[in-house]
């Protein structure tokens, strides 16, 4: 595990050096970049936007950032993608909700000569199951968090907290979006492979990360399984809902271990108070910055970016929440 973290840390440090390398050239024309995100609501996307804006300002580019109201609105997002293509920007960044549905739209962008770099989630233009890094025929690549590895890290941490045995519930935030699937599968597969004494209950979903639904799912699970040891929530809304269910059931803090995802003020408060054990955080600002950097370098210098840029992830808890390496990626 240390190894993974080290690699992640080294990668981030290298990224930082490369990222600040390019100076603004006044003679260059300001590049217009359209970024189509999976959402605007969650602070995660706000952090991606901030990272993208900061990087764009450094590289003489402007970004226009938009996303649908929630992560189930594939159609809405594809309309936004079409709208962005019609504007003929210098480049497009796209976080795929519709990993297969977006293919024809992306091909239209290619036909119009607009370079596309994916962020967070790639679409598959090669057909079949969407796979990271094989989308080269419709996008240059993807800046992403290795969600499967992040899910596996959550599994290791939760297993350690419950002593490697007992019942565990996974609450997902989507059955269809790739990030949601990877976070779930990374966790589930690691538990199945490595922790034979942990019993996984059937995965439940709070679609779109609805905190209220997650609360209700958790309440029911606590009733149905008096011996529940741990819960893993795959996004911020789910984690908060689960924590609120603990409060409502007046559980002793730490009786059921909870590992969540991302940050946000309430989740961080829950971790500090001991209601929640910990969470995995990605590097959202890094995702935004790397996407913009890859696109600007490609348009301006014809530098073909790597088709996979891993922007990293960390596990944090009460003990290391203030660590600068962690705190920089957390948002209220």
């Amino acid at each position: 595990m240390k190894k993974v973290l080290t690699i992640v840390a080294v990668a981030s440090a290298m990224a930082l050096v490369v990222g600040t390398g390019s100076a603004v050239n006044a003679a260059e024309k300001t590049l217009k970049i359209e970024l189509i995100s999976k959402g605007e609501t969650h602070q995660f996307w706000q952090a991606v936007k901030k990272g993208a804006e900061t990087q764009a300002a450094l590289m003489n580019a402007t970004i226009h950032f938009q996303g649908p109201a929630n992560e189930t609105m594939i159609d809405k997002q594809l309309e936004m993608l079409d709208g962005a293509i019609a504007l003929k920007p210098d480049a497009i960044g796209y976080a795929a909700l519709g990993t297969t549905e977006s293919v024809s739209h992306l091909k239209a962008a290619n036909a119009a000569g607009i370079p596309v770099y994916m962020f967070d989630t790639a679409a598959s233009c090669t057909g079949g199951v969407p796979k990271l890094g094989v989308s080269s025929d419709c996008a240059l690549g993807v800046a992403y968090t290795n969600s499967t590895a992040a899910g596996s890290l959550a599994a290791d941490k939760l297993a350690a907290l419950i002593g490697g045995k007992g019942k565990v519930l996974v609450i997902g935030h989507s059955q269809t979006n790739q990030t949601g699937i990877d976070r779930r599968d990374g966790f589930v597969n690691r538990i199945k492979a490595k922790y034979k004494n942990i019993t996984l209950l059937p995965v439940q979903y709070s679609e779109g990360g609805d905190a209220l639904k997650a609360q209700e799912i958790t309440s029911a699970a606590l009733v149905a399984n008096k011996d529940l040891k741990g819960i893993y929530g795959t996004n911020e809304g789910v984690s908060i809902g689960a924590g609120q269910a603990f409060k409502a059931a007046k559980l002793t803090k730490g009786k059921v271990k909870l590992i969540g995802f991302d940050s946000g003020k309430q989740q961080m408060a829950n971790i500090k108070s001991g209601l929640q054990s910990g969470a995995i955080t990605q590097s959202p600002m890094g995702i935004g910055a790397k996407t913009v950097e890859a696109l600007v370098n490609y348009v301006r210098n014809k530098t073909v970016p790597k088709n996979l840029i891993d922007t990293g992830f960390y596990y944090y808890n009460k003990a290391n929440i203030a660590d600068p390496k962690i705190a920089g990626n957390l948002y209220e």
Partner: protein
Amino acid sequence: MSDAIKAVDGEVEGGSKIAALVKREIGRVLALGSLVVIFIFFTIMRPVFASWENVSGGILMSTTVIGLLAIGTTFVIITGGIDLSIGTATALVAIIVGKTVQSMHLNVWSGILVGLIVGGILGVINGLLITILKLPPFIATLATMKAAQGLALIVSDMKPVLFTTDVKGWDSIAQGNLIPKIPNGVLILFVGAIIAAIVLNKTVIGRYTFAIGSNTAATKLSGVQVNNWLVAIYGIGGLYVGMAAIVLTSRLGSARPDLGLGYELEAIAAVIIGGTSLLGGKGTISGTIIGALIMAVLVNGLRILELQQEWQYVITGAVIVLAVWGDNVRRRSAGEIS
């Protein structure tokens, strides 16, 4: 005016008041019957389902937000209208309450008052769009649904508002226990239902709600200011949105701008399962509560059984079809509809 009311009464209940009453009671008894059957089914499958912990903390608590929305929208649906905005309006009210409480350091009671006022105003806006601009309710409230969603995001600056820890007692609005073993949220739901039932059955506005839904033109002809009453009725819907928003923030410990979308459909489903006609003119609050409970019992029971979620959706859909179809069959045999 009293003549008008009498005329309106005749319109609603037909020739024999007693016959109409019996018909209505049968409907409720049948709906209650399906609720009991579903409840017994889950209890047999997993006895822990019937534990008080699950009934109060799981089922009844899960009914609070959707139940309050459904009560308010029962009025609207009885007029023959619809309110699609209640889901996202809940998020908007929650955010405005959170922001106001936070910036003005309000106490619990002032916060609740803000919620009711903002909710009421949103309802009145719907009413004005429908009566003054003459927009069909579906379109008017679709527009406010979108606008509320956007405003919730704008006002919150896309961030959840964590205000409850600053206000003493906010958690207790839904989670405290004025009566031992019964969460306050559940108490609010039932008190809200009783008030609504009294307003609907014992007051002028209640009578006009039915009258407008049965025959708007005739009601107008009998001298009733239909437009004014409609605005007030949508305002009542808004008050319940305000209540739902307050209970929601208390349950979650924060106001989240991304919540609420889709709640309108769950609330409308509860109203219809409870026997209220989408065509207007007929409906009861007790039916709506039973409808909301059927949905909550079903969703909670399927979770307790730990069924795969995909099948939970399919079964929920099937039960909605069965519930409404059963009600139609009953009404057809009772000659209420052809």
